[in-house]
Each structure stands twice: as structure tokens, then as C-alpha cells.
């Protein structure tokens, strides 16, 4: 039974990792652990956990329909695992949703605030009701074990047919309504996917996916517990599934033809390739393989088909759920590792509960032995003569706990590597200075820079061999020294003083020594004070005394600095126009037409000058 234990250990470790991420998610908000953004508000958790989760759990209603409605009794042996998979699938959807919702504690609001126009409202209600139906459908299985529950069990068994019919009807509604969710986004969803019949295609693909998921689950647990795999039954399911897939293929392509979108199919965009990839693995490969009898009759063949089909439909849900939305992904959304971990952890939790139920209750005809039920416990020393009896086997539970804790610790370690509270502040990429005789220094590429005159620097530092004062200062890995080695104040926080403008030849045209004294390190303290040049900076009757000119940033400096005082001063001076932009920005914009202005005027008003890019040697 090592196989089962190792599998469970892996599941517990994934959950441990998930626990660490979950902590971060609820402590720091969605932005800290997801790559979601204002442009891509739905990601993996909706596309996979919810959209695909609901579809993956559709095996429940497909198989109950097969057995209780179509009365194909031979499938009876796989109904119970299918219902259990569905039940756990829906619980996993709900749990996954709690991570994705911004305010998960308000999830019950859907019960009291009704919006009958919203497909999401309908999906929510159907999922809640169907979850109840599934609980009632599955309840007789664990109840078998306990005699005192026999009355309830008998009652529920009598109710089975109405429950099954309600379950099928509810599934029809919400499986298709997941498609209706996207009907309201005709301008975002790519035309290859957007269609008014999305509810229908979602429903049909859910049936196909249900059959594939039952196949996968049956084969996989068969392998895990070394159970006999029900290949003969699964073969029949496969035979039914090929028609479903064929129907799906026909509807998808027919729909494109009707909507006159076939032209899109020949394009070279990545969405077109994605469409073909999706369609090939959703429908074409499974259909072709399922028409081959040998494939249908081999466990490996069926497994291949199941995995391709499941992957394909999951991909379809993720695509519609946000990946192929036009213009949402100028910055391509890729899920963060933390998002993937949560997704896996939710699945792992559901898998563990499945195994727990399968080992304790009669989910399969032949119940697998619980490998943990009888851990071998041997004393390390003989109780009488204290002789060494060998190492006892570590109880599986201890292993799982340890795995969980270690994984959680690793998770926390990985998370603490990034400052969570400040995540999302993009570092501004610095750009190397460009030019030869004159360097154009515009580190953050905002078109606003400094012209650096080589000759002047060389001359002012003493000419001759003074190159070495900047180049090769014997700093590690130094090629040439940054400006801040001399201009030590240039990175001081937010200075209202526009140094670049003062020194630029198109602005203040000031040489350095006109403000900074010669022979002294150039810094704020040693420079001239503003009012030494700007005599009119502070009017003689000024009621305020300006001591420093600090503002939030260079760009905001002048505006914020001046406008704040102007606003304050407007009232006592009885001049309401003092804080208006138009006091300085004379006239309305439609009077100043840039095309009519002569070139001198444009130079004055045009604030930005950009040098043409020069190739680096």
C-alpha cells in the first residue's frame, strides 16, 4: 500500500504549501498572491477552480441520468464514485471561490439580495441547490454503516428518483449558465469563442467532460489501489462520449459558419492557434481515438483519451474565462505560483476526502483496505529484557503531519522573500545615457532628461588627465562613475528645484559654477539659495516664509508646491482666481492651436525634447 501512502503524503504537502499561501492571501489581499490586475480581474481561480471545477464535476449528473433514468443498470457500480466526485468537486468549487472572492464572508448575500438578471446569481443558486441534492444523493452511502440512520436512509432511497431528476435539471441550468456569464461581454471575448449559443456549447461539453472525468477517476483510483479497472464499462462510456464530442465539434464549427466568422480561422494570431489547439484536444483527438475499438478496450488508451479530453475542456473554460479576451491582455496574464499552489491545494483536499470516504464507506463494490487502519506498532525495546527490537515503522499520520508542516514552512519561506505589502510597485527600468560629446541622461525614459556635456566636465575637473576622476575610480566593476558620486544630493527625496532645467542649455543655461562654488562638493547646502537669483520669488509683503521647497516628486513639484499656497492665499487676498490653472495657463486650449504657432513659440510651450536614439558602440 505504499502507493496510496506516498500519494497521500504528496497531497498533504501540497495542502501545507497551500496553507502558507492562504495565510498570505487573507493577510495581504488578492494583489499579494495573484497576478490579477484591473485589466484581468478573473484568472486561474475562476477559469480553473470554478468554471472548470463545475464542469469536471458533471460526471455526477451524467451517470445518475444513465443509471436511474435510462435504467442502464450495468453502470451501477460506478455511480457512487461519480456522485462522490461530483459532491467533492462542488465543495472544491465553493472553497476555491472563497479564495477568489474579495469579500468571501459575504458569499451568503446571494441568498438574500436577488438579481434575477445576473447569470452569476443563477449559477450561484443552482450550485447551492445542487450541492444539497448531491449531499442527499450521497448520504445513504455513509449511512449504511450506522444502524440508527437506517430510517433516514430508507427515506432518501425512496426520494432518489425525484432527487436525480432535480439534480439533472439543476445541472443543465448551471452548466449552461456558466456560458451565459460571458454573453454580456461581446466586445471582450474573442469572436472565435463569443457566440450567443455559448450556453449550449458549455452544456454539451460538460456532458463529454463528465464522461471523461468518470473514466479518469475510475482508472486512476484503480491504479492507486491496485483495484480491477472497469474497462468494459468505461468502453461503453467512451462509445457514448465519441458522439457527444462529435456533436460538440459540429456545433462549434457550425456556429462559426452561421455567424460568418470562419474567416478568422485562417489568421495567424495566437488566439487562432489557441482555438485550433483547443478544438483538436477537446474534440478531434478524443473522437478519433474513441472510434478505434482497440483504444476503447485498453486502459491506457482510455486514459489517454480521458486526459486529452479533460485538458481540452479545461483549456476551453480558461480561454473563455479570461485568456482570450481582447485587449485585456496587453500585459499577458500568467498565473503566479501562489495561484497555482492554491488551486492544487484545493484539488488535493478534495482528493484526500475522496480517499477517506472510499476507504471507510462502500463507494466501490469492493472496498479498499484503509492502509492507515492498522499501523504496525512495535516497541523499540522489549518490555521485559529491554533488548533492541528494531525501529518501529513511522505511523503514516506522523509522516503526513510532518510533510504538511515542512511544506507550510517552505511556503512561508518562499513568500517572505518578497515584501508583500509593497508588491506591485514596478521598479522603473533605468536606461543608459546616450550620446558621445553630449550625453542624454534620461534614466526612466519619461522624455525628461539632462544634457551632460563631456567637455565641460572634463574642463571643469582640471582637464588633462582628469578623465580618471570619473572613469576608473577603482570601484568594483566600475566602468564610469555615476553622477551621484559627485552630485551627492541628486537622489535626495523629491526636490521642488528643477536642476535639469536650470543647467540645460534650452532652459536656464546656467553653468555649474554660477550656482555652486568652485572647489566645494556640489550639494544643496553649498549651492546658492533660490532667492539669491529669484529676487521676486517671495514678494516683499509675503505673509509666509518659504524655508524649503520639498514636494512629492519632480513632476508634481511646481504644481503642488505652488497650488497649495495659491489655494490658501486666495481667500485672504480676495482673489478667487489665484489657484486657478487658467491664471497661468492663459486662455482656453482651443485658442492656442499648436499647428498655427510659429516655431519659437512652440519651443517655449513644448516642454519635452527627445534626442533621436543613437546606437551604442
Amino acid at each position: 500500500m505504499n502507493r496510496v501512502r506516498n500519494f497521500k503524503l504528496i497531497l498533504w504537502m501540497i495542502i501545507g504549501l497551500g496553507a502558507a499561501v492562504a495565510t498570505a492571501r487573507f493577510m495581504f489581499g488578492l494583489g499579494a498572491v495573484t497576478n490579477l490586475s484591473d485589466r484581468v480581474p478573473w484568472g486561474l481561480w475562476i477559469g480553473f477552480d470554478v468554471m472548470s471545477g463545475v464542469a469536471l464535476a458533471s460526471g455526477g449528473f451524467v451517470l445518475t441520468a444513465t443509471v436511474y433514468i435510462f435504467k442502464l443498470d450495468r453502470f451501477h457500480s460506478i455511480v457512487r464514485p461519480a456522485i462522490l466526485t461530483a459532491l467533492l468537486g462542488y465543495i472544491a468549487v465553493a472553497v476555491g471561490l472563497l479564495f477568489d472572492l474579495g469579500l468571501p464572508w459575504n458569499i451568503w448575500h446571494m441568498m438574500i439580495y436577488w438579481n434575477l438578471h445576473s447569470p452569476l446569481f443563477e449559477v450561484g443558486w443552482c450550485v447551492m441547490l445542487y450541492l444539497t441534492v448531491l449531499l442527499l444523493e450521497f448520504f445513504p452511502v455513509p449511512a449504511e454503516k450506522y444502524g440508527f440512520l437506517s430510517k433516514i436512509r430508507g427515506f432518501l432511497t425512496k426520494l432518489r428518483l425525484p432527487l436525480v431528476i432535480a439534480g439533472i435539471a439543476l445541472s443543465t441550468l448551471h452548466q449552461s449558465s456558466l456560458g451565459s456569464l460571458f454573453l454580456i461581454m461581446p466586445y471582450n471575448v474573442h469572436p472565435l469563442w463569443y457566440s450567443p449559443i455559448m450556453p449550449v456549447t458549455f452544456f454539451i461539453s460538460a456532458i463529454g467532460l463528465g464522461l471523461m472525468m468518470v473514466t479518469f477517476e475510475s482508472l486512476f483510483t484503480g491504479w492507486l489501489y491496485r483495484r480491477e479497472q472497469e474497462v468494459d464499462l468505461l468502453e461503453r462510456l467512451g462509445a457514448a462520449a465519441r458522439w457527444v464530442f462529435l456533436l460538440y465539434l459540429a456545433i462549434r464549427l457550425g456556429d462559426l459558419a452561421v455567424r460568418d466568422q470562419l474567416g478568422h480561422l485562417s489568421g495567424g494570431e495566437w488566439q487562432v492557434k489557441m482555438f485550433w489547439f483547443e478544438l483538436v484536444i477537446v474534440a478531434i483527438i478524443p473522437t478519433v481515438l474513441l472510434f478505434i475499438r482497440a483504444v476503447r478496450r485498453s486502459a491506457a488508451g482510455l486514459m489517454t483519451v480521458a486526459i486529452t479530453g479533460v485538458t481540452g475542456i479545461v483549456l476551453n473554460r480558461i480561454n473563455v474565462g479570461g485568456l482570450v479576451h481582447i485587449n485585456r491582455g496587453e500585459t499577458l496574464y500568467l498565473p503566479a505560483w501562489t495561484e497555482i499552489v492554491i488551486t492544487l491545494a484545493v484539488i488535493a483536499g478534495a482528493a484526500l476526502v475522496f480517499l477517506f470516504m472510499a476507504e471507510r464507506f462502500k463507494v466501490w463494490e469492493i472496498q479498499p483496505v484503509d492502509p492507515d487502519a492498522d499501523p504496525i506498532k512495535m516497541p523499540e525495546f522489549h518490555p521485559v529484557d529491554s533488548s533492541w527490537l528494531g525501529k518501529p515503522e513511522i505511523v503514516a499520520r506522523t509522516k503526513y503531519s510532518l510533510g504538511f508542516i515542512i511544506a507550510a514552512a517552505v511556503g512561508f519561506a518562499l513568500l517572505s522573500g518578497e515584501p508583500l505589502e509593497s508588491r506591485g510597485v514596478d521598479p522603473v527600468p533605468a536606461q543608459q545615457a546616450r550620446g558621445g560629446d553630449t550625453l542624454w541622461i534620461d534614466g526612466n525614459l519619461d522624455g525628461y532628461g539632462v544634457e551632460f556635456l563631456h567637455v565641460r566636465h572634463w574642463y571643469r575637473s582640471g582637464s588633462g588627465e582628469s578623465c580618471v576622476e570619473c572613469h576608473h575610480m577603482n570601484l568594483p566593476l566600475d566602468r564610469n562613475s555615476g553622477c551621484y558620486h559627485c552630485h551627492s544630493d541628486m537622489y535626495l527625496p523629491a526636490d521642488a528645484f528643477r536642476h535639469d532645467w536650470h543647467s540645460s542649455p534650452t532652459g536656464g543655461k546656467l553653468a555649474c559654477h554660477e550656482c555652486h562654488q568652485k572647489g566645494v562638493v556640489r550639494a544643496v547646502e553649498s549651492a546658492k539659495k533660490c532667492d539669491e537669483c529669484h529676487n521676486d520669488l517671495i514678494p516683499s509683503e509675503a505673509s509666509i516664509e518659504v524655508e524649503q521647497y520639498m514636494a512629492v516628486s519632480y513632476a508634481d513639484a511646481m504644481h503642488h508646491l505652488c497650488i497649495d499656497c495659491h489655494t490658501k492665499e486666495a481667500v485672504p487676498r480676495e482673489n478667487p482666481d489665484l489657484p486657478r490653472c487658467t491664471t497661468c495657463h492663459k486662455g482656453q486650449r482651443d485658442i492656442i492651436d499648436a499647428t498655427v504657432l510659429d516655431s519659437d513659440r512652440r519651443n517655449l510651450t513644448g516642454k519635452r525634447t527627445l534626442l533621436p536614439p543613437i546606437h551604442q558602440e
Partner: protein
Amino acid sequence: MKAILTDTTKCIGCRECVIACKTRYKLDNSIPRRWSAEDGLTARNWTSIIERPDSKYVRKQCRHCIEPACVSACPVNALQKNKDGAVVYDSSKCMGCRYCMMACPYGIPRYDWDRQVPYVRKCILCAEYISDGKQPACTEVCPTEATIFGERDELIAEAHRRIKANPGKYINRVWGEHEVGGSQVLYISDIDLSFLTYGQPLGDKPLPDRTASAMHAVPYAFVGMGSLMAGIGWVIGRRMKNEEGGKDKPEGEENE
């Protein structure tokens, strides 16, 4: 119905509207974050000025559609259109599904991605002020009257009047008059404003109509599927009973 008309040819890009909005609603400073879109709207900037080539400025804000997709999408009625037509948000109802953000054809609603208790944020047309007969903060402070507030039909008439008076200057179109059923924030401009949407031109059909047909089918699908299944089950059950009596050939293959 109240409305805002923004004439982009008059905008000098001074951002007084942005500051007035932030002041009125006490919004924090907006640090550029990974999740911010390039249009400048964030959870703490409900309106923004987009700079276009040749010093053209366009103010972006919620359009307050006449038939809003977000209101129709919200499963818990957290977004509502009030009597003045402002699309307002009730944070106490919201559960944070962000379907409104997906549904909006203009991509307006923004989210508090960095908060433990995050809300959907967008312009609410200063709802409580306009119901008192006051103006929204943005139109109140605009120094050049580039963005003005008034009755929707009067503003549409004014927009057409301006276009007619100066046909060479404006593009002959009032943005927001018809798109997706019309909106209460209107634009006239000398540049094409299609960059305010997702790229595809918007039709005149209101977006909630697109889901309406599917939603109307829901009760019929439920009853239909239920009775279909009950019927099939009954018929097959009866046939199987008859066969047991009549010993016919085994049945079942055709039902798969």
C-alpha cells in the same frame, strides 16, 4: 436624467477634476502598482486625464450607461442605478466576485487589490450631491468648462449645436448618445475616442439584452429538462417491465 458632457477640445489637461474628485471622496495618493492599467484609473483615481498625441487631453470616467452591464451582472445588487441615473455601489452588499469589472464594455471599475477588505471602486457621479441639486466635483472645478453637468437631452442638444457651429473642428459624433443603449457621460471631440473601449466598435444594443434571452429560458429549461427526464425514465421503466413479462430481445444498446 442628469449627464456630463466633456468637450475634449476645451480641456487643457490641468487635472483639477482629478484632484477635486480625490478631495471630495478623500481618496489616497495613487502609487503606480503592478495591477494599475495604463489609463490612470485606479481604485483611488475615479477619473483620470489621458494624454493623447499633439497635447490632446481626454478625461476618462464611468459612463453611467442608461442600461448598465455592471448592474445587470452583479449577482447581489451591489451596483444599482439610482433615480438620477448614477450607477452607485453599495459596499455592504458586495461579495467581491468582480463580474462587474469583466462585464463593463469600457473597463471602468477598479479593485482594491492591496487591501484585506477590498471594494470595487469607480466614479459614482457624486450621487449624493446631485440628488441635493449640486454638481459633481469634476464639473464644478473645471476652469475651462471642458466638462459640464446638466440634463441629458439639453447636453445632447448642446453637443450637436457645437458640432454644427464648428463642423470643421469636431468629429461629427456624440460619444455616449447611442453606444450600448446610450450613457449619461457624453463626449464630443476632435480626435477619435475609440481608445476608450476594448477596440471593437460598440453597437447600439444594450448589453443586458444579450443575457436576457438566456435568463428567460432558465425556468423553461428547468421544467423542460425535469419533465423530459421524468418522462424518459417512466417510458423506459414501463418498457422494461413489459419485456420482463413478454421476454423480448434484450434492450439497452440503442439508449446509450
